């Protein structure tokens, strides 16, 4: 995919993450330099979680999603959650826990989901970068 176009789409989605939204949700943007969007989630009584989206070829491809501790190390274990979004894995490509949800590159490249194509999602507003983060965040809040 043309990198300039990918960068422009990245910047478009980034522009939607207003200070008002970040404050309301207690999100902290750690990095937002293309192709990486790194956001920390916090909530009372919860261990913070960093979600790092690597958006190479956005949005021809979904972002690769890394789950990280607040200080930047990879999460080694994810807790069982009713949404099923946080999967212990290990993912065959990364060897780590992963986001098992449409909109994550690890989902669409997992042998169990290769028939569920990203093309069926990419035009929907729920699958902008902010939309994908929202879906992960809500699953994280649900525990």
């Amino acid at each position, binding site marked *: 995919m043309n990198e300039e176009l990918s960068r422009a789409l990245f910047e478009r989605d980034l522009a939607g993450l207003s200070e*008002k939204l970040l404050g309301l949700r207690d999100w902290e943007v750690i990095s937002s330099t293309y192709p990486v969007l790194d956001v920390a989630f916090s909530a009372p009584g919860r261990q913070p979680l960093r979600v790092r989206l690597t958006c190479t070829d956005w949005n021809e491809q979904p972002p690769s999603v890394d789950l990280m501790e607040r200080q930047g190390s990879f999460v080694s274990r994810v807790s069982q959650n009713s949404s099923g*979004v946080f999967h212990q894995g290990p993912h065959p490509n990364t060897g780590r826990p992963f*986001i098992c949800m*449409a909109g994550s590159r690890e989902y669409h490249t997992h042998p169990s989901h290769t028939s569920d194509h990203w093309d069926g999602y990419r035009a*929907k*507003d*729920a699958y902008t970068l902010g*939309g994908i983060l929202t879906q992960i965040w809500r699953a994280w809040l649900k525990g």
Partner: protein
Amino acid sequence: MALNETSGERKVEVAIVTTSGSWPATGFNEVPERQPVKHEIEQAVRNLHIVNTAGWIAIVNGRQINVEATYLENGLSGQVTIDYGPPHGGGGR
């Protein structure tokens, strides 16, 4: 909660926040407390150029509200900031 002196109808101040921006861009819109929440959400969707909102949910102070009901019926008053967006993703099987 504001009281409109002309009509006697109480008002709430509403802001809708999404990952595509906020409506209004700054501050709040004053709307009747007996107006269904969905009216202001529809304004936000139109003005923020959001197209597909099937299944999206509205959250206020951590509580999902009923967008078909009024602010009054949802127990909302004063300044109301609505977090509007998709629900949590579905896990693969």
